[in-house]
């Protein structure tokens, strides 16, 4: 029979210290009973001989040095899994929130996951059609990719993520199994509710799993939420052969939680007070996207993070960008011009795009067209800067053309409505239509043969 330890040695924020424990192991889960009724879970984060430092997931409210009984569970954090999790809502550590009974586990899996052997990975090649021109055309999402949305407070990242989910995974063309794993970390109640309603309205709720840690839920729980969600995603993808889209929002709260706990552990801070292992910790989350060769399923991640003060060089978006395979960057000035989705395409990027588009996937002109749109739109910026100095009237005719191309590009290509679902061909043709605003000689990123086909000389 397991030994119960009475009382605690120290309580400091979300951390408690337990002395005299026998046979504890690193990262083991401890069950703490407070006042003989409330049960809390904690994880050992440091271990010195018989002294264990424990992170309490549910927070340390009501705990005193005397009113607890602690019991070692003998295993690291595990999650109960079975196909029944689809359609359910759980808290950040996988306990039911929807008032239904706990699920009967088919498997119990360590949430920490193991690194996927690069040799066992399959390089992602199938694109996911989202119906959003800025994404399909210029930063194509690939199945098995991790493509974060870099946003700011007050920008419509939630609507964008919801639209991607609605139009991408729930398309009617596919007979393959799709499911969504939604993890909320420290988001407002309204946000979680918005996603829940969206899923319900689109009739998708029966293949959505939600793990919710809201803004007022304990901070420590937040640290484990993405891992719990990804464990469920991996189970559904690689055991059940489903294609999983994981939405993680908001990664900034996750990193903030890490900083909070790290500082109460008395660790040495590195950049902006975040712990030195921020990169490794983010990587263990993001790298859990992918495809395992020989298995049917896939895990695609769309993490959302709000850039503090819209600063893309802040450690959180910065480190994320170094791990993920591209990023979709939302821009406040576009949002103010009422462009939805306000995607600034220049810093946006999809690293896996090049192998998932073109002949046999989308259309042979896709890559060249995308390069040209990027390049021309970059020149729009230069022309606008010049116009702000010397005035629009003084611009050369070609710079004026760039200005009108820029306007049209933002208003027609990037901008679309929340329910508009454009086909890939529509997106590409729209791109060509806009390029016709510019003279043919300006299109220097396109192979002559393709140019001849889509922008013949006589039209110029």
């Amino acid at each position, binding site marked *: 029979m397991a030994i119960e330890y009475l009382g605690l040695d120290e309580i400091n924020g979300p951390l408690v210290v337990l002395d005299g424990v026998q046979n504890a192991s690193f990262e083991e889960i401890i069950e703490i009973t407070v006042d003989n009724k409330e049960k809390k879970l904690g994880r050992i984060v440091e271990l010195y*001989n018989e002294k264990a430092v424990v992170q309490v997931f549910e927070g340390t409210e009501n705990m005193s040095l005397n009113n607890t009984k602690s019991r070692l569970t003998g295993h690291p954090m595990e999650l109960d899994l079975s196909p029944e999790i689809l359609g359910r809502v759980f808290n950040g550590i996988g306990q039911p929130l929807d008032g239904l009974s706990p699920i009967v586990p088919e498997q119990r899996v360590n949430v920490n996951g193991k690194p996927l*052997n*690069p040799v066992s990975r399959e390089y992602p090649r199938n694109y996911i059609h989202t119906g959003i021109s800025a994404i399909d055309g210029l930063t194509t999402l690939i199945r098995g990719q991790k493509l974060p949305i870099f946003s700011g407070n007050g920008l419509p990242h939630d609507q964008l993520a919801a639209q991607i989910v609605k139009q991408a995974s729930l398309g009617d063309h596919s007979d393959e199994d799709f499911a969504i794993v939604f993890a909320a970390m420290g988001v407002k109640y309204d946000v979680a509710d918005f996603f829940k309603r969206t899923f319900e309205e689109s009739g998708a709720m029966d293949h959505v799993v939600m793990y919710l840690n809201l803004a007022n839920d304990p901070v420590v729980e937040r640290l484990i939420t993405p891992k719990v969600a990804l464990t469920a995603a991996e189970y559904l993808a690689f055991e059940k052969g489903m294609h999983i889209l994981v939405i993680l929002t908001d990664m900034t709260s996750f990193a903030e939680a890490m900083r909070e706990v790290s500082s109460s552990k008395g660790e*040495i*801070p590195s950049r902006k007070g975040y712990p030195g292992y921020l990169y490794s910790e983010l990587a*263990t989350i993001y790298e859990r996207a992918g495809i395992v060769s020989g298995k049917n399923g896939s895990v695609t991640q769309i993490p959302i993070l709000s850039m503090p003060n819209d600063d893309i060089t802040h450690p959180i978006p910065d480190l994320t960008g170094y791990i993920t395979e591209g990023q979709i960057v939302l821009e406040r000035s576009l949002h103010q011009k009422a462009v939805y989705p306000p995607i600034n395409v220049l810093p946006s990027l999809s690293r896996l795009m090049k192998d998932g588009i073109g002949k046999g996937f989308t259309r042979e002109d896709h890559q060249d067209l995308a390069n040209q749109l*990027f390049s021309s739109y970059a020149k729009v910026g230069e022309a606008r800067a010049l116009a702000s100095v010397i005035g629009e009237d003084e611009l050369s005719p070609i710079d004026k053309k760039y200005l009108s191309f820029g306007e049209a590009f933002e208003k027609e290509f990037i901008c679309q409505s929340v329910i508009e679902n454009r086909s890939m061909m529509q997106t590409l043709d729209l791109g060509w239509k806009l390029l016709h605003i510019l003279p043919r000689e300006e299109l220097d990123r396109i*192979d002559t043969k393709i140019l001849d086909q889509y922008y013949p000389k006589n039209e110029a």
Partner: protein
Amino acid sequence: MLKKGIIYGINGPVIYLKGNTGFKMSEMVLVGEEKLVGEVIALTKDTTTIQVFEETTGLKPGEEVVATGDAICVTLGPGIISNIFDGIERPLDRIKDSQGAFISRGISVDSLDMEKKWDVTLKVKEGELVEGGTIIATTVETTAIVHKSMVPPNISGTVTFVAPNGEYTLKDTLVIVTDTAGVEHPIGLMQKWPIRVPRPTKNRYPASMPLITGQRILDTLFPIAKGGTASIPGGFGTGKTMTQHQLAKWCDADIIVYIGCGERGNEMTQVLEDFSKLVDPKSGNPLMARTTLIANTSNMPVAAREASIYTGITLAEYYRDMGYHVAIMADSTSRWAEALRELSGRLEEMPAEEGFPAYLASRLSKFYERAGYMENLNHTKGSVSIIGAVSPQGGDFSEPVTQNTKRFVRCFWALDKALAYARHFPAINWLTSYSEYLTDLAPWYRENVGENFITCRNQILALLNEESKLNEIVKLIGSDVLPDDQKLVLEISKVIRLGFVQQNAYHPSDTYVPLEKQLKMMQIILYLYTKCKELISYNLPISTLREQGIFEKITSIKYDVPNDQLQLLDGYLEQIDEFYTTVKNQYI
């Protein structure tokens, strides 16, 4: 008797043992029941500190730690090339065979295949005197590489036994060397070497040969020497990895060691897939036949990430000792520096700039100094070139890793966000990049490519510099007010930027460009410039020159002239002459 200790404390990848264990610094240890691999990193009278190369979840105080007596070593022998290893040289494909798709802990697999039989030809005779580095046997390792087994550096003496030619495994003894003290040293195909110690060489040569990469902006504007060091700093999305891939594919080294240090798993998969399919244009062999990969992706244990850089360079030095030119791509050294920072933080060391430990600079210098063009112990010549990517935080080059790297490398290929946003690749900024090798390599270029190669190169760079100055003015007042000769500089620079500096990695004839074509392209562009300048001096406006379409034609040379039909290039000079006479006759 093996020394042992008992685990006292655990903090992430760092564990503490109580008391004086008698372990040595940098010694390899096996931790706990699962025998996780670790390394001793600090010793005091009361505590031994160990970093563990695997996940420490589930370890318990009271478990045993056993010393192995050796420093962290790599196994050197045939079978390294075409293989993929993790940060401490464990073969990933065999881990997959034994563990499945995910990597678990405490895996005990041999680094190299011990059962495989290699067809060995012996190169020494009984009675011969040998010393460290002497080649005793050769075997064909891959279609591209002949593996030369050598006497380990610290052994010398007389050969007292030689096995006949035939098939041997790594475990077999091929030669016995008896030293002056009468001790017999059996030598086989395999040897071990500690990763943190550079392999000894006889002599260091100055840089004299370029590492030809087939990338115009590198070969022409900022060349790197064989045995040289370069760094590629750039924020995310600026194409560090892409540039590294291009170099690994096309540079003219004999062997490539590609270190994926704390980077993405999918990228390593891509290298594996691509390199197995692609063919080396010079030898016709698959690229994988000259490549070895070290993959310690960002989610694999952090201590092994720190070690992966050293593992890679030790493998490279081993092949250099055989007389090969080896190039290392380290992607990315910032992740390695961050691993140092992470471990330093766990050890509660006093942080220096940005939380990095104060010894960051000395560790970086030790690593980059292992590059060089060397005379080996066996008098062959070989080189190790290091090309390290740097991922500066926020793309800001003033951060410690970029700044300290800059002190120890001689080539600086700065990637630029603005170029990358405009999808100008390679996004190497020609104004901030530099190469200190240019003067060292100038004689080689003059002798092997063309007398005026360096002159052309300087003119091209001067034009680009001029353009950036003019652009400052254009930004303020627009380009219309510039005089025509300055407009011409802008026009020609555009040809240089789009037609020469920018290179398309996905276009079959543009992904790799031979030096001959690079020179001819420069000459054509400069010839066009001279001719246009003459026309402008007759007071012709630039717009009339533009109408002829000659600029577009020259810009697309890179696509229109395949690498195997370089004679087509000569036609362009005639076309420029034609353009010159047409315009002249028409307007003057």
